């Protein structure tokens, strides 16, 4: 572990990524087969493989308790001040440990074992005992890196890609082979070991670790595309999901997981989708959309939102907001990674799949030309969707990348000019700055009605500037945090939609509002009105969509059935 610590120190001292790769590539061969996978995983900044769901769940408070016992000669207040001043748990432990004549230098394997025990411990008291047993004896540099692994802040500036490059370099194998093996098995440690022994080909697809999502570029109306190979799908108003399915076979029950764009496991929030996907006859990794869906039609995103962020949902909520999964791509099929095959073949695989009830296939149409595309686009808008996804049938699936394969065609959103009515301090880097703003439009009677709250969009300089202005405009401070300000600062805000809302006085709330720019040129008297909001709301097909429109909105899904 001492060598590992020395490598981390060298990596921190190096900015050039090529040099970082060299450092790692010359370190890996010094490890034996037992240490190689563990040290490689450590270099990802996590104690375990990406596919490994275990977490250490050790908090700041537990580490502080261990520190208080370790450095008993120091006042706890001084310890806390030290942690605050340095801002890095591992570094502070390491600095304090210097000169304490403790020099245990366990091997990488031993540290790995200790962290596994820490992950396995269920009770906080057991975790505390393991920490108290592990940390105090360690050599300062080893202590620093071990604590950094525990808190997940290695700060060595090594991306997964650089690590893959180092593995490829160390084993003299093509980078693409290493990347493919990593994608398959989700464990850089295993990949490093396989690479060393020329066995990358043996990396098996491990389900239930999320792969990256294909990202889309932007299509501008009128652009020419190779129409003969373009598929257009309506851009659904749900959340992107990656489904992993292992069907039941004799001796094992089926298993399904759904991952969100942020690679979080959201299976628990959509049990009925999991149940239906479990009825698929083969193992699968598929890309698709989670939609709120009832009586053959899609429900607005606002309804789906109620299902998000929950570990579990009850029967009642499932009845109120039923969900469904619309498949649009496949990444792995029957244990084989198919991302390198053209979309045409992947789509054919999906079309050959006997779909369980309540699992849909996204409808794809082939536009003849740009004019035809416009018609499809208008229809998508009429259906209450955001626009179209345009996909090239000859392109592979590129996880985590904005490949050439996908383009999104969205309607330009209207913006609103609003005035700031209240502000509060931001968090993290923006702590102490009045960066979170609540804003309003003008009602017919001239009064201001709040319609949303935005957290981002301004530059740091602008935030500094507006913070000063807001301090000056402050009229009342509520709860020491929220400041009501004189309505003088006009902003232009963009948003993804308008919803009915009881929270704001306007009766509406903007979905995902963000500040486009400051409008010092615009007098407060000329900000947008509530009337305009009602207009936009009707235009954007919000919550109260008339039944006819909602029925056609589900067209893309029902077409596929």
């Amino acid at each position: 572990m001492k060598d590992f610590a020395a490598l981390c120190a060298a990596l921190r001292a190096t900015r050039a990524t090529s040099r970082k790769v060299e450092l790692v590539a010359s370190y890996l061969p010094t490890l034996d087969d037992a240490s190689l996978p563990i040290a490689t995983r450590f270099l990802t900044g996590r104690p375990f493989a990406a596919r490994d769901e275990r977490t250490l769940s050790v908090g700041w408070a537990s580490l502080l308790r261990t520190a208080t016992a370790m450095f008993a000669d120091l006042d706890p207040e001084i310890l806390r001040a030290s942690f605050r001043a340095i801002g890095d748990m591992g570094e502070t432990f390491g600095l304090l440990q210097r000169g304490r004549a403790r020099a245990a230098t366990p091997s990488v394997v031993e540290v790995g074992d200790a962290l596994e025990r820490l992950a396995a411990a269920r009770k906080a008291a057991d975790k505390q005992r393991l920490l108290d047993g592990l940390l105090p004896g360690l050599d300062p540099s080893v202590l620093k890196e071990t604590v950094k692994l525990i808190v997940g802040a290695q700060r060595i500036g090594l991306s997964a890609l650089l690590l893959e490059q180092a593995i490829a370099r160390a084993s003299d194998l093509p980078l693409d082979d290493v990347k493919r093996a990593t994608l398959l098995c989700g464990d850089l440690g295993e990949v490093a070991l396989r690479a060393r022994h020329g066995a990358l080909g043996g990396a098996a697809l491990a389900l239930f670790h999320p792969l990256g999502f294909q990202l889309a570029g932007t299509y501008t109306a009128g652009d020419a595309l190779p129409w003969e190979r373009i598929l257009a799908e309506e851009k659904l108003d749900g959340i992107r999901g990656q489904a992993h399915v292992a069907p039941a076979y004799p001796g094992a029950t089926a298993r399904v997981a759904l991952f969100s764009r942020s690679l979080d496991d959201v299976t628990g929030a959509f049990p009925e989708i999991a149940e239906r996907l479990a009825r698929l006859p083969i193992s699968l990794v598929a890309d698709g959309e989670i939609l709120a869906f009832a009586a053959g039609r899609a429900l607005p995103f606002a309804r789906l939102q109620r299902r998000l962020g929950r570990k579990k949902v009850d029967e009642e909520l499932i009845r109120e907001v039923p969900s469904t999964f619309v498949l649009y791509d496949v990444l792995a099929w029957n244990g084989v990674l198919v991302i390198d095959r053209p979309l045409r073949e992947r789509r054919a695989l999906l079309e050959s799949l006997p779909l369980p009830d309540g699992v849909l296939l996204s409808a794809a149409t082939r536009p003849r030309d740009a004019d035809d595309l416009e018609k499809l686009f208008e229809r998508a808008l009429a259906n209450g969707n955001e626009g179209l996804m345009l996909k090239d049938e000859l392109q592979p699936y590129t996880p985590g990348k904005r490949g050439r394969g996908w383009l999104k065609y969205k309607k330009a959103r209207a913006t609103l000019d609003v005035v700031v009515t209240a502000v509060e301090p931001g968090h993290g880097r923006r702590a102490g700055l009045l960066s979170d703003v609540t804003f309003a439009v003008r009602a017919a009677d001239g009064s201001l009605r709040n319609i949303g709250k935005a957290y981002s969009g301004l530059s740091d300089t602008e935030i500094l500037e507006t913070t000063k202005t807001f301090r000056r405009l402050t009229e009342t401070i509520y709860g020491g945090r929220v400041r009501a300000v004189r309505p003088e600062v006009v902003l232009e805000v963009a948003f993804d939609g308008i919803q009915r809302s009881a929270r704001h006085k306007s009766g509406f709330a903007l979905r995902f509002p963000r500040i486009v720019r400051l409008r010092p040129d615009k007098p407060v008297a000329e900000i947008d009105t509530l009337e305009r909001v009602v207009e936009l709301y009707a235009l954007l097909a919000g919550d109260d969509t008339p039944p006819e429109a909602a029925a056609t909105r589900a067209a893309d899904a029902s077409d596929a059935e």
Partner: protein
Amino acid sequence: MRVEARPEGLHLPDLDLFLDPAARVTRAVLSHGHADHARALAGTVHATPETVAIARLRLGDTSYVPHAYGEPFELTAPSGTVARLTLLPSGHVLGSAMVLVEHRDERLLYTGDVKLHRSRTCAPAEVAAADVLVTEATFGLPVFRFPPVVDLEARIVDEARTALDSGEIPVFLGYALGKGPEIARILQDADIPVMLHGAVHRMVEVYRSFGVGDRDATAYERGKVDGYALIVPPSARTHPMLRAIRQKRVIAVTGWALLDASYDRYGADVLIPLSDHADWDELHELVARTGARRVLTTHGFAEPLAHALSAQGHDASALHLLHGDEE
């Protein structure tokens, strides 16, 4: 003896005397020439001859009264009583002084900036006994404990040689007053040729005029830097002068080099924690050597240091002075 933190700086009301004032006052003692201490002039400025020379360069002219280390001088208090003041080496940089004030059977020691470990370019600190100590606390946390000076000096020489041997220019970051001349001296003592940024070069000339350093130091000349170790102030690290040097190794020499964040903060490839300030252990040693019961802390981690000293039975508290960037 009463001590006050005023907007104009640290004030001894009984003597109507300011120590390192931030604004123009009637009379003051300057502890040393760094910009966060020598901030403003006073009608009458008492300081060591070295600090007088530096303050004259940086702040301009006034009525300076130079005092050699260890030679007491008297000031009359508004009450008519007489205080005896002595400037003692603080070991921080050339000319830096601790100020010992003896008035009505009470002894106050103000450290200015202080270090107890050795330096090749300034006099070692002489710690006097005192009843009240006003000490800096730049590194007043237990995470700040510096390795032995000999090891750090050896690393400075090693890094310079390794860089030169591999065809790189070693670029050391060090303040003109203090670290720059110190690094120059360490390298010259190891027969490594040094080239100095203009600000460092001017200061080295001041050092030489006081008999510190006897070797020629070359001022920076564009295109002539090959084979030299270059010494520049940290503020010059983004200067075009450095961008013009393609193959370089940037070495930050500062107490902050203990922290990984300093790679980014100084844009450095190498960090060497040779400091001109006392570390946690030295601050405690300093307090012990003065025998002071009452301790006021200022600059840096004043609160934690005061807290730790209180826990050890001192009457300690943090003074809140407004001050500029640390040197």
